[in-house]
């Protein structure tokens, strides 16, 4: 009897169903309700910008792989570039000109990822690096918000008009410009008005939570992001500890400060109703590559992100601080990983074998 070609390969001889591209696919599926909502809400210009960003990210990925002489097919189809472009697009103002999306995708893939050595090697979250760079480099385009104009509603630009908004000189855009809720709050506080007075002018919390407000392309609907995120936790793709740490620290600090000085600090529910925070807690802070590898490390990193978000939102120059908070926490990851390690079986935390008496 002969076997066709029994291969000698090292044990284990079976493998879990879990693969990189399946993980990426699951994340994309969980991200899609919020994305579809954003695309519907902001109409054709948003769809065009989303497409441009993703195509840009994918093109730069292939280019970088070719430059690095890596096998293009298996690497480009793992879904990571697609997801990165997707996340960049989620954070952009929906009616931003095409080159913002193009640059965003490019920065994320080239400077955020491949300069460090490609998949798994980057220190910083590529999408957040791109967003932060854009915010500093082209602050005007990155802070121009529009009120929701759902597809098909009166006043929503049709496909041709949208081409002009995204790819041409955007005259219509200026007329539509609006302010994000967090922006309104910050400028109000800066002007010395009280919190209750400002909140009277902003949409109610429910509207904020359900996303019917001006904001980034995919960040307005906190409810759908939360739902998608919970799915990821249930699928065991992300650990629950990270979103809990991020949301918990923001909410805790907000509650504390609001309790002390209710007229100077917004209540925690305003923070939690922000889609950017939800996106960060479930989809950005949980990024495998840039977060610590241990449970405790992830907890620490989540707490850092949440605290920094609160600090930047409250005292910083920007109304929204997710990108900077994530980047700063990413920079701590190697340090956290070096110090926070699991205890090895049969050894103390310092690495000495356990005492026999102490074994019980």
């Amino acid at each position, binding site marked *: 009897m002969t076997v066709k070609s029994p291969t000698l390969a090292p044990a284990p001889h079976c493998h*879990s169903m879990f*693969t990189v591209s399946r993980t990426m696919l699951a994340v994309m599926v969980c991200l899609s309700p919020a994305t579809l909502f954003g695309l519907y809400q902001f109409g054709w210009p948003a769809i065009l910008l989303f497409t441009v960003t993703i195509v840009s990210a994918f093109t730069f990925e292939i280019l970088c792989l070719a430059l690095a002489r890596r096998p293009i097919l298996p690497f480009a189809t793992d879904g990571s570039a697609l997801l990165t472009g997707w996340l960049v697009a989620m954070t952009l103002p929906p009616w931003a000109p095409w080159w913002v999306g193009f640059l965003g995708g490019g920065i994320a893939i080239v400077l955020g990822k491949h300069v460090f050595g490609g998949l798994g090697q980057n220190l910083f979250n590529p999408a957040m690096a791109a967003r932060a760079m854009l915010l500093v480099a082209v602050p005007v385009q990155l802070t121009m918000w529009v009120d929701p104009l759902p597809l098909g509603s009166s006043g929503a630009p049709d496909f041709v008009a949208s081409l002009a908004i995204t790819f041409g000189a955007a005259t219509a855009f200026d007329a539509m410009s609006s302010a994000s809720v967090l922006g309104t709050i910050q400028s109000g506080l800066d002007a010395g008005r009280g919190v209750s007075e400002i909140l009277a002018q902003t949409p109610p919390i429910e509207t904020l939570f359900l996303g019917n407000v001006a904001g980034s392309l995919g960040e307005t609907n906190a409810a759908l992001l939360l739902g998608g995120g919970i799915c990821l936790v249930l699928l065991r793709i992300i650990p629950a500890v990270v979103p809990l740490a991020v949301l918990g620290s923001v909410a805790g600090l907000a509650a504390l400060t609001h309790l002390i000085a209710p007229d100077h600090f917004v209540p925690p529910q305003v923070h939690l109703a922000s889609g950017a925070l939800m996106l960060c807690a479930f989809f950005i802070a949980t990024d495998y590559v840039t977060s610590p590898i241990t449970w405790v490390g992830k907890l620490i990193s989540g707490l850092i992100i949440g605290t920094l978000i609160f600090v930047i939102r409250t005292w910083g120059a920007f109304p929204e601080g997710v990108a900077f908070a994530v980047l700063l926490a990413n920079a701590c990851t190697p340090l956290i990983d070096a110090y926070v390690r699991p205890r090895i*079986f049969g050894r103390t935390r310092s690495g000495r074998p356990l005492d026999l008496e102490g074994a019980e």
Partner: protein
Amino acid sequence: MRRSLLDLLRDPARLFALRGGVHPLGQKFLASNSPIERMPIPTLLRVPLQQHIGAPAEPVVVRDDLVLKGQLVGRARGPISANVHAPTSGRVLAVGHFAAPHPSGLPVPTITIRPDGEDRWGPRLSRLHPEDVSSDEISAQVREAGIVGMGGATFPSAVKLGLREKYDLDTLVINAAECEPYLTCDDRLLQEHAEEVTDGIAIMASALGVRRALIAIESNKPKAISTMRHKMAQLGEMGRLVVVPTRYPMGSEKHLVQALTGKETPARALTAEMGIVVHNAATAYAVHLAVRYGEPLLSRVVTVSGRAIKRPANVRVLIGTPVADILDHCGGFARPAKRLVLGGPMMGQPIENLRVPVVKGTNGVLALTAAETASDLSMPCIRCGSCVQACPVGLTPLELNARIQAGDLEGAEKVGLLDCIACGSCSFICPASIPLVQSFNYAKGKLAQRQSEKHRQEETKRLAEARKAREAAISKAKREAMAKRKAEMAAKKKRAAAEKAAAEQSVEARPPGKVDSEAVS
């Protein structure tokens, strides 16, 4: 790991928590309903002289010898070694070398026997009544019978039974977790031979002088659990059955001990130092046969399974039966086999050569299809941390691998490389299909090699220095001897000169004739 108060409130019989582990597809249903069948005697048996950890046995037969069933053919050499017996009667065709049941397929000392088909017993060992004999006699009998750990580690069982002399023992743990997927041989053995296994447990417990015997079975074997629970109750106060959760690697000795007793074995220590000895269920069965009936270890139950096998089964085969014969017995292949494995799919050895024999530690012969092995192209690590969560030892496999790939073996050793138990959970779970455990095994081998090289260098240096010192001592001695002789010569000369002078003086004083007569006398 202490049981917290909350755990006690929730469920007083709860097991102690373990860290990590994975849940591979069990696939036990393929063979779990096939009763153990006895395979006909094959036309050729190849019995390796080393089927255990330790020194290989020394052959005591030569070519063309006629051997009887149970006759000693290889004698244990040294304290950590095991006897090897003829599994059936027949003629010794060769005492030489044959391919090992190992991926390398390198030739190892092997006795080839052509069975005569009569299966005639030779003189058996004496039958013992465990109630009447001392524990030393029991372990001597187990040593005579060539019994080794049958879960796969193949450590000589008699050595473990003798631990009583060195340590204060109180618990015997019988490992019937069988956490490897596919394998059902222990499951079937417990179902069909519960009585014998329980007797073996009682014998071992009395030999060890322990006050309690626990048998641990994973929760996915309900039939074995209900059968054994009944039998263990017959051991009275001492015996207890513990159902452990189905999770790989529950059968890892130190982890099982922790799950059962909450005691964490210190690194580099033995469980015996905490008073606990672990034996496999199949070993208990072999001990029963050896002590009650004087039968040496001649056969074992092997699970033949995998989607490529036409008729998955549990087969009692003679030690030394070629894998090809076993596959034939099970109807051969139903589908193309991508990989052939001896043992379980998580830690088993892949083989190429179908003529290699089954040995005392072989618990499975698996023929896996391409779909089952699911081996993917290895991709870069995305730091997902699955391996960190899966590692039952608390290592950070991704970091270990990064260090090893960078050639930093000392760094890898510092972060726990040598604590790795090679269970393969990290490789199993890795979404990028990185061969982590292979990398660790490589690094361990490399470190061992470096260690032995260093040792050799030091030894060479020591010998060279010793030689230098010896030579220096010799030349010094020579020099001294020479100087001494020189001095003696000089003294002699001086004396001679002095005597001559004295003689001349006396000649002057005496007549010459007298001197001559003195010289003659």
